């Protein structure tokens, strides 16, 4: 592998990693506040992508204009998921697996019925082409997606650290009972978390659809990636998720550059196994940014 190919893979992977961060945050936030594993996470992103694709193919608008629309479109589902999660019996971690596995299958079949199994892509001309920078060719679509993802993650960071609702979400994630005793309405904080997380999923979905082909079962891989990143970074640790996302993007890009795309998923799976072996504490970590 030449030095230029290596640099190309590093930059390209880092750009993709910014998107991975955005994609994993919604999963991590819900896990932090509810202790529930949302296996339908990737399917919600794909649904956001399909909504974006549907709007884009019908209107021809720039995909970035559709990002907030897809984010808002998933809000009713956030309230439905919150209602369902609220009724989960203990142990919540296990019950949530059963519930969200069912929801994942339901979403996949709804998407299959609505958009069939054909591959779809938001192939906007404004996102094709590449830029030359210091001898590297940067994909314009990836640059736009990375910039959009970083902007959303930055806004989320400010919201979580500087606002009252953000502090409520962080405190609820750290210790639900202690937060409630300090006057925080933890039910409201949980509902806000679901609304935020689903909005992020819708946003991530449209950005994803500009990079990758959509198909109804494509969410499984995204859920797996979110789990890997959450294990690496810890629940709701926003800065750590960003570092882990970029690292994952780089490892993937290096794998593809070195041995071709067929090894990509295997490497991610091996990374998941390695994470689980290395961190016995696993997912049980809290907010600290």
């Amino acid at each position, binding site marked *: 592998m030449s030095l230029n190919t290596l640099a190309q893979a590093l930059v390209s992977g880092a750009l993709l990693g910014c998107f991975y961060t955005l994609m994993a945050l919604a999963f991590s936030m819900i896990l932090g506040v509810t202790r529930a594993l949302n296996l339908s996470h990737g399917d919600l992103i794909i649904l956001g992508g399909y909504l974006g694709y549907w709007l884009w193919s019908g209107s021809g608008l720039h995909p970035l204009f559709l990002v907030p629309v897809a984010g808002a479109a998933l809000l009713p589902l956030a309230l439905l998921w919150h209602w369902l999660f609220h009724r989960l019996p203990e142990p919540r971690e296990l019950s949530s697996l059963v519930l969200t596995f069912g929801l994942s299958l339901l979403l996949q079949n709804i998407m299959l019925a609505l958009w069939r199994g054909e591959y779809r892509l938001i192939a906007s001309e404004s996102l094709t082409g590449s830029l030359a920078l210091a001898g590297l060719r940067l994909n314009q679509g990836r640059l736009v997606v990375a910039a959009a993802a970083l902007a959303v993650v930055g806004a989320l960071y400010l919201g979580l650290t500087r606002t009252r609702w953000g*502090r409520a979400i962080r405190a609820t994630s*750290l210790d639900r*009972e*202690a*937060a*409630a*005793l300090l*006057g*925080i309405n933890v039910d409201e904080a949980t509902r806000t978390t679901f609304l935020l997380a689903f909005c992020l999923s819708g946003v991530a979905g449209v950005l994803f659809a500009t990079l990758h082909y959509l198909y109804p079962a494509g969410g499984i891989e995204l859920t797996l990636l979110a789990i890997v990143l959450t294990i690496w970074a810890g629940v709701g640790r926003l800065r750590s998720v960003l570092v882990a996302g970029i690292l994952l993007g780089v490892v993937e890009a290096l794998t593809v550059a070195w041995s071709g795309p067929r090894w990509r998923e295997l490497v991610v799976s091996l990374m998941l196994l390695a994470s689980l072996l290395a961190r016995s504490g696993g997912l049980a970590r*809290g907010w600290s940014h």
Partner: protein
Amino acid sequence: MAFGGLLALRGVDIAVEEHQVVGLLGPNGSGKTTLFNILSGLLRPTAGEVWFAGCRVTNLAPWRLSGLGIGRTFQIARPFAHSTVFDNVLVGITFRSRHHYRRVLDRRREAERLLAMVGLAPKASARANELSLGERKRLELAMALSTRPTVLLLDELASGLSPKGREEVIRFYGRLKERGLTIFAIEHSFRVLAHVADRLVVLDQGTIVAEGRPAQVLGSPRVMQAYLGEDE
């Protein structure tokens, strides 16, 4: 209060008068913490009622009870471990007392005042998980006070502390009483209870087995032998 087939509390009828310090004691598993969990809204009783300042508050959410003026600490202190001592105290001020301190500067001053009161001002910028056991308990007391309670439920403030630490706890009780707070406290230390409590209630197997003035209850051979064992 029942958990499945286990009756954790049965026929417990306790009245805590305003500005009094009432001590609650009893062996492990007697139902003390369960009672506190009900009073603070963390558990819903399967039967019975809780009244506060003339209002029925049974089954109210913890944040609503906090809003009414009930504050609480835990037996094992539970501050937000990765946050600073100062930020921990600021949480309650921000969410519960914000109407009293509308400006950020005033909230920060109140946090500083509370930390000074519990002797943690020099540790304000330390992370909560860097504190010793005694310091954690003091931090939790400051956190409970940050919600401007009129009633404080204190769960074993003196347990696990050195004799010097216990003397400090006795002084804290005195200061809290001076502020006009009503205190319902789980304690195992006879020395602390004898100094601070106006009245004692003894629980065993979910029922009240003794109640009265400290000298009367602590001197009772039945309480000493059957439920409390040796003191310190």
